[in-house]
């Protein structure tokens, strides 16, 4: 990291310079977690200092993608827009071209986590999606990163007041993964009063790539944020999703599913941070573990002192299907006022033998029985999405996990 300060000076002569500098200082001030003194602070997905250095110092180059024949509104290569369709009330641009247009709020949100600070200091590409108020739009984004490139992106999404938006964002790897690249991105979503966003996020990168993703949302009054996130790819993954519910009566719902196989390590964190009055958060995550892989689900329901009449729920279930894999869960409740309701639950087990026996007694073989049970396990999460394409893709994954 010695060269990083110099890199910061040469690369980043933009209006975000102070922001980057603060972020980098925050990164330096935040110690790497250790589990030596307590099991409570253990990094389960081991991103080494080298991985983080690769991500911070990597510069995404231009990625040539053929726009033709792709079923998406916006095609992104290495964080830069390759092609886009005109959508009414929607403005999308590369972030480096939009720095002067971004509202000050963007630079006030510096994040909370060590890896996030580093992304906020070092990004060199990303998009700015600005949806005007009172619109009803659906946006499909397909994004590819080169399999041999390390780097980081910063994405900003603005949802205007009273708009209803459905986004499906799919993340893939272009070409063969080489050299263990680490790819980071921090997506910040700002939701105006009364707006609704359904964000369908699907990540299916090559297992030769390590991925660090932060999705941080800021909700104003009476906004509704519903996120469906599916993590299927990447060798090492840290996926962090947190909504700050600043506005009264804001509603936040999470439906997440993760699939790990082979030697994948997956760390999925979903949290609420409730400040406004009468807010609600409902987080449901599911995981399927195969091979020698590992999955950890964590997240806090955090209801702060002013957030009276609020509720928060977190529920994690993981199916541990192999002898070599393992699963952990660390759900937390942080409740700072008593005029609230909150609950969390987590369960980890194999497929229920009684259920398999029941299906076998109906003439279904064990393999198909397992497939049906795990399929139903994931289906309960994705069926609430309003995006058919998204649902279909995840159904394919559900079939695939069954050997």
């Amino acid at each position, binding site marked *: 990291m010695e060269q990083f300060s110099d890199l910061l000076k040469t690369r980043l002569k933009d209006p975000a310079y102070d922001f980057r500098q603060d972020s980098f200082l925050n990164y330096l001030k935040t110690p790497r977690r250790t589990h030596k003194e307590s099991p409570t602070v253990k990094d389960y997905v081991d991103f080494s200092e080298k991985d983080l250095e690769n991500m911070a110092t990597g510069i995404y180059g231009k990625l040539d993608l053929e726009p033709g024949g792709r079923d998406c509104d916006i095609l992104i290569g290495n964080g830069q827009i390759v092609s886009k369709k005109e959508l009414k009330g929607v403005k999308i641009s590369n972030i480096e071209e939009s720095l002067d247009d971004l509202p000050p709020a963007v630079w006030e949100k510096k994040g909370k986590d060590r890896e996030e600070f580093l992304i906020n200091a070092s990004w060199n590409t990303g998009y700015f999606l600005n949806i005007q108020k009172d619109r009803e739009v659906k946006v499909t984004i397909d994004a590819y990163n080169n399999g041999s490139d390390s780097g980081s992106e910063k994405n900003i999404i603005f949802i205007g007041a009273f708009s209803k938006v459905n986004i499906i964002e799919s993340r893939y790897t272009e070409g063969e993964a080489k050299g263990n690249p680490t790819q980071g991105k921090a997506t910040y979503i700002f939701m105006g009063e009364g707006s609704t966003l359904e964000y369908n996020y699907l990540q299916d990168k090559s297992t030769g790539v390590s991925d660090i993703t932060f999705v941080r949302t800021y909700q104003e009054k009476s906004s509704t944020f519903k996120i469906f996130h599916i993590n299927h790819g990447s060798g090492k993954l840290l996926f962090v999703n947190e909504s700050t519910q600043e506005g009264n009566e804001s509603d936040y719902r999470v439906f997440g599913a993760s699939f790990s196989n082979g030697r994948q390590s997956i760390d999925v964190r979903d949290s609420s941070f409730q400040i406004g009055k009468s807010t609600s958060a409902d987080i449901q995550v599911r995981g399927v573990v195969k091979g020698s892989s590992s999955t950890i689900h964590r997240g806090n329901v955090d209801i702060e002192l002013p957030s009276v009449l609020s509720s928060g729920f977190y529920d994690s279930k993981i199916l541990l299907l192999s002898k070599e894999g393992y699963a952990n869960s660390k*759900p937390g409740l942080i*409740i700072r006022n008593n005029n609230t309701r909150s609950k969390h639950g987590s369960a980890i087990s194999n497929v229920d033998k009684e259920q398999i026996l029941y299906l076998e007694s109906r003439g279904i073989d064990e393999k198909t029985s397992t497939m049906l049970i795990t399929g139903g396990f994931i289906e309960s999460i994705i069926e609430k999405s309003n995006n058919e394409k998204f649902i279909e893709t995840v159904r394919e994954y559900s079939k695939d996990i069954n050997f």
Partner: protein
Amino acid sequence: MEVELSKEEEIERLVESLKDSKSSDWEFHDKYNPIYSTGKGLNKSVVEEISEIKKEPDWMRRMRLKALEIFQSKPMPTWGPDLSGIDWENTTYYNRPDERKSQNWDDVPDQIKDTFQKLGIPEMEQKYLAGSVAQYESEGVYHSLKKVWEDKGVVFMDLDSAVKNHPDLVKDYFCKAVPFTDNKFAALNGAVWSGGSFLYVPKGVHIDMPLQTYFRMNNESTGQFEHTIVVGDEGSKVHYIEGCTAPRWDKDSLHSAIVEIYAQRDSDVRYTSVQNWSKSVYNMPTKRAWVDERAKMEWVGGSLGSKITMIYPSSYLRGPYASTSNLNISLAGAGTVKDTGAKAIHMAPHTTSKIIAKSISIEDGKAIYRGLLRMNKGAVDSRSKVQCDALLINDDSQSLTFPHDEIYEPTATFSHEASVGKIGTEELTYLRSRGLSEDEASSMIVLGFLDDVMKEIPMEFAIEMNRLVKLEMNKLGAVG
């Protein structure tokens, strides 16, 4: 014959009982000066001095010095409550109250005896206990065991006496389950430990009455560092109870104990602890049990007092079909933090664990559940259930829950549930419609919330805990 009371009578009795409850029942202090003290601060010569006074063998002196090095090299925990208020320099690490270790209350110095009498210990011993040890400051001052158990080979005395009288037996277990390298506070205990109990129950012996140790700190800015070892040999059964109190001072004191429990094959060990340190005590014990094949280990705890408590009793389920349960009540009163929880490590097939934690936060009290549940690879068909419930009484009361669940065995089954809430308006309305005042109804709901755990606590302690919970509620004007 007991007459069943109506709800109204129960409430009336509850209110009446509170009139007599006051914290001065246990927060009084005696003008008793120790006959020997190492003075304030901790260094190599203090540790050597403690070893010298106790006339310990060389291996123990060397072990203490090694532990001191580890204590000094380990950083403070970077997680959990703020411990910056611990005044290491101005704490006295060893106070000897008296030369004698009596086996008869008449031989205990009057002032110390009066203290334990005020706490009701001799009376309790006579009525309910198979044996008891009383520790005052750094040393056990009294120990007794009923002859019937002594004849069966049971050993129960303060640990210092056991080191002298049963050195080989002690050496077999000392610092095995909790090595002093475990954490900073265990290392501190390793360096300056004094007192604590040693209980050995031979093969096949079932003790049908509990044994108890009562710990009392009297002076300000002192530390109590007892080390307790409980061994349930194969097929034995025992219930061991600990209670502790201290007066309230302006300057804080430190309690950093070690409890090691060895539940050997087919044994049944229950450990109950009711902690009611005053609000000037940092309470940082390390408690751990090794549970062997088909053995059963039960932890029952009430964490009521102290300024800050960090305690996570652990069970290492080492043999097939070993089981453990951990039932705990935490009461976080105004200005206090209870960082409590439990750990269960499943290391063998067909092991089971159950953890139930209940907490109540009053005023700005903060109750934290922090636990670890781990199923190691090979813990085939093991099962575990963790449940934590928190009740927040006031607007600014806080509850934090941090469970850590690690499953490395695909045939294991595990579930965790936690809930946080306040006294339900529906329950209140129901009770009020039956003629109870809001305060009476609140109190009844709080005690009902604790009932799962309370019913597992021996009657005498349950009454005491009920009294303490009601007392805290009473301060709010919620009862009476």
